């Protein structure tokens, strides 16, 4: 139990610290590295909640795929000029005020509902399932969620075509 608590706080610091560094750094490459730390923290949280398949997907897809895409674009696009200019836009006081309002609301609801969320925690784990996490996900994904799964493949096809068209020199 204690190790769980310690690990949670380590991962929480990784997630939040990485997130804050991501949105405050001037150099975009530093932001990308901080984002990797944050995403690895999220992956650790998945592992703590017995979502092993998503842990692997998070590392392979986010840290291995999306971050390489980001770094690739950072190197394609000349960002030296942007790094010398103002980093925050003029509406930032209004934006921060609005976000503080939303944060107060969300915090209030989490605080109010904290007893309601605890009911589920109290329930006994009904004999750890014999099937593994990946197997359970596959069972659900290929039976109940088969149609969304197929639709997502169309979404990915559209995204591939769209990104190729966008990045092409002349269409």
């Amino acid at each position: 139990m204690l190790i769980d608590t310690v690990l949670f706080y380590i991962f929480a610091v990784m997630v939040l610290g990485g997130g804050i560094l991501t949105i405050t750094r001037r150099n975009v490459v530093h932001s990308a590295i901080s984002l990797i730390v944050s995403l690895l923290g999220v992956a650790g949280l998945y592992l703590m909640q017995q979502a092993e398949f998503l842990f692997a997907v998070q590392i392979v897809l986010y840290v291995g795929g999306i971050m390489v895409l980001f770094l690739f674009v950072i190197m394609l696009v000349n960002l030296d000029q942007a790094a010398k200019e103002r980093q925050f836009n003029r509406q930032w006081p209004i934006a921060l005020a609005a976000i503080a309002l939303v944060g107060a609301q969300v915090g209030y609801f989490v605080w109010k509902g904290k007893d309601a969320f605890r009911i589920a925690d109290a329930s006994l784990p009904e004999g750890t399932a014999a099937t593994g996490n990946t197997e359970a996900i596959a069972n659900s994904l290929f039976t109940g969620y088969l149609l969304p799964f197929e639709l997502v493949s169309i979404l990915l096809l559209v995204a591939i075509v769209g990104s190729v068209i966008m990045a092409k020199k002349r269409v």
Partner: protein
Amino acid sequence: MHPITTVHYLALSAALLLIGTVGVLTRRNIVIILMSIELILNAVNINLIAFSHALKNIDGQIFAIFVITDAVAEAAVGLGILIALFRNKETVLADEVDLLKW
């Protein structure tokens, strides 16, 4: 020390969501705005996994997979648009893209 409950995950997820929103609304660099959107989507995923774990129901993890897929598609198209934008306007700052404003 208190044991970690679902509420801890919810609070962490809310904090990450707010950090991502700050990034989207206040930064000028489009690359960082796209990274902030990834942070927001990860906050959603933490929430989904927390409830999936607490309710012993696998559906939350399935939704998280769909959210990750959407994040990939969004990042690919967004970065493609960024490259097209940089080729035409030589800028990556969001508030300099005002071709349709008057």
